[in-house]
């Protein structure tokens, strides 16, 4: 048993040996994929084979795959690119409406707010229920009552509490109203079956380092018929939607990680679910007052199999994180950080959790290297840590 347990795979996971090998191999070749000579053609071949591999694995067309520098860039391209494109189609600079769930990752929330502040976009935040699930009837009502919607963006699964959103239904509703739909699928890739052809979204964000590929590469899987106004201007490498030299070794490794993730998805999800359920059971049995957040059906399809997210009322989440860190457990408060300063999670607040309880929360997320020994370590360390962390709160409020 190693001396530490890493249970923060939703933040980033270990690189797969096969992905590392693919990166090493591709990096031995000189060449810019945009160059016309032999070296360039070789690098281009690596990129295009990877594109085809990814498209096949995600059941879409190669032309749908737009490589980016990662999830954040893909989300920015989707939100801003679809908004501006809609204005262009309508031939107007008039502010349009943006529909976004209140529990999006900051890589979506912040571009949406930016559009509001700088472009005058009208923003409708879609509320969620106590499980963090978006209401499709509320969405349908909004779309029925507003004809100026530029795009709707709802994540496939939430990164903090693991709730899987009804994206198939949302995509249908958007299609019925002729509204562009983007979904951030960074957390679901490899954990949930993905058929992007069947989904029919206009844009889907994926990221390499969340599934065992290298950092610094991701993709926006687009409907090639849907236009996107570029955010990065330059050489126009990716269908004039995205500019910047393509990172052939990283893309090759990304494709290998996706193939592994898709091929192993069923077995992987089963492995993750077993560990997660064991952890939930152990925590709820040993820590009085612990609350599981998100979808409580641990055998159903409504929750990411890797995700366990708890509140420990009466504790400070960052004290708990420190104590568990000292006990050899890497986990997360799950919420946004600025230079290490945790804030109360906007996701939990949107679910109706009060601010104090929101601050008393921790996320544990499993990955392919996780074992039952990791579960045992958490279950052994947590009761003592919660006991101590509760004292830090009473000392602060006295």
């Amino acid at each position, binding site marked *: 048993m190693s001396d530490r347990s890493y249970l923060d795979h939703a933040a980033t996971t270990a690189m797969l040996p096969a992905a590392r090998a693919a990166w090493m191999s591709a990096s031995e070749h000189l060449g810019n994929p945009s160059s016309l000579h032999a070296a360039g053609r070789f690098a281009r071949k690596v990129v295009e084979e990877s594109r085809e591999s990814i498209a096949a694995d995600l059941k879409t067309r190669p032309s749908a795959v737009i490589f980016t520098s990662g999830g954040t860039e893909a989300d920015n391209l989707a939100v801003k690119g679809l908004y501006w494109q809609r204005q262009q189609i309508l031939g107007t600079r008039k502010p349009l409406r943006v529909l976004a769930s209140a529990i999006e990752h900051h890589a979506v929330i912040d571009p949406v707010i930016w559009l509001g502040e700088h472009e005058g976009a009208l923003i409708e935040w879609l509320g969620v229920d106590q499980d963090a699930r978006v209401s499709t009837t509320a969405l349908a009502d909004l779309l029925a009552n507003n004809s100026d919607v530029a795009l709707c963006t709802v994540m496939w699964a939430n990164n903090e509490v693991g709730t899987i959103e009804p994206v198939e239904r949302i995509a249908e509703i958007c299609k019925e109203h002729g509204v562009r739909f983007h979904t951030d699928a960074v957390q679901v890739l490899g954990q949930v079956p993905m058929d992007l052809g069947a989904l029919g979204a206009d844009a889907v964000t994926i990221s390499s380092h969340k599934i065992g590929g290298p950092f610094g590469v991701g993709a926006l899987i687009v409907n090639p018929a849907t236009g996107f106004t570029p955010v990065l201007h330059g050489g126009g490498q990716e269908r004039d939607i995205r500019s910047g030299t393509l990172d052939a070794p990283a893309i090759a490794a990304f494709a290998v990680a996706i193939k592994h993730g898709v091929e192993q998805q069923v077995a992987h999800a089963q492995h993750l679910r077993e560990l997660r359920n064991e952890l939930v059971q152990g925590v709820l049995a040993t820590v009085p007052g612990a609350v599981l957040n998100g979808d409580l059906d641990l055998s159903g399809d409504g929750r990411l199999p890797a995700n366990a997210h708890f509140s420990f009322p009466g504790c400070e989440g960052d004290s708990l994180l420190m104590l568990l860190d*000292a006990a050899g457990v890497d986990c997360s408060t799950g919420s946004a950080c600025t230079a*290490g300063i945790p804030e109360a999670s906007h996701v939990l607040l949107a679910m109706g959790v009060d601010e104090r309880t929101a601050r008393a929360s921790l996320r544990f997320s499993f990955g392919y290297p996780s074992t039952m020994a990791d579960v045992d370590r958490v279950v052994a360390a947590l009761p003592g840590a919660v006991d*101590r962390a509760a004292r830090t709160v009473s*000392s*602060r409020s006295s």
Partner: protein
Amino acid sequence: MRVLVAMSGGVDSSVAAARMVDAGHEVVGVHLALSRNKTYGDGRQRGCCTLDDARDARRVADKLGIPFYVWDMAEEFAEAVIDDFVEEYRLGHTPNPCLRCNESIKFTAVLDRALAMDFDAVATGHYAQIVQGSAGPELHRAVDPEKDQSYVLGVLQPRQLAHSIFPLGADTKDAIRAEAEARGLLVAQKPDSHDICFIPDGDTAAYLQRQLGSLPGDIVDAESGEVLAQHDGTYAFTIGQRRGLQLSRPAADGAPRYVVEVEVGTRRVTVGPPELLDVYALEGIKPIWTTSPLGKAPTELLAQVRAHGVPVPARAHELDERVIVELLVPIRGIALGQAVVLYDGTRVVGSATIAATTRAA
């Protein structure tokens, strides 16, 4: 011991952390985020509370190989230090926010949280010394008179002192900088922070005006009673102030004039000759004793009323919940709200908030 080091990202707390590691303690670094508006510095600002300062602290912790965290204490700081600071000025007092921060944040909120998390002590980069005396731990001045910070630590009580470590008190600032350099700490040449950390531009009057608004009133001559000028708010004036009065006419005798009285109710600021500022006795409230209470019998001590003020011989005793201090050498210009810290030689006896002064001999 398990020691938590409060790391501002400055040279002092960085060396303090390094020394705690050298001493063989199990050390964890914590940076306190005290500002509600988290901003990056401009690269020149002399602060301790920007995200750049947090980064500096993190890099020192990396170098030392110790765990590092940021604790967000902005709410506690705003309540205990900033709100108190503004309110005191509104009342016409002159508070010392560093003292309040040590009293309520560093050696209460942080220390209590550390103790609850099973730490044995909190170490900081303050220049002061703790000496084990017969009656318990004693707080003493630092060796470097230029850097001595015992004044702003005069609010510590025995329980807090017992769990505090000041690793720098026996050295000069120059020596600490040289040590930081020798240790290869990137912050070795970082300038000292002198300003009030939540007023990074140093313009306290403008800050208070934003908080309290414009409250115009008269500036009056103490001797003639004549109105000399108008002002925008009494909070911009403190007893003993000479600069920034913007009087159009000089005094009859041509001598400089000082603020000798600030009345909040009438918004009247009175100016006059320096002799009117001499204080011969003062009364302190909310006394705090670092080792043991002073007692009711008058005791010969030294009194200091500013962070870098000159200590003067004094005779002090407790009366009810107050401290009566007779200054054997008068101190010129004492504002209400300042802290008086009493010393027995280099030992801090305790402190109190000045609530009344006597100016006639």
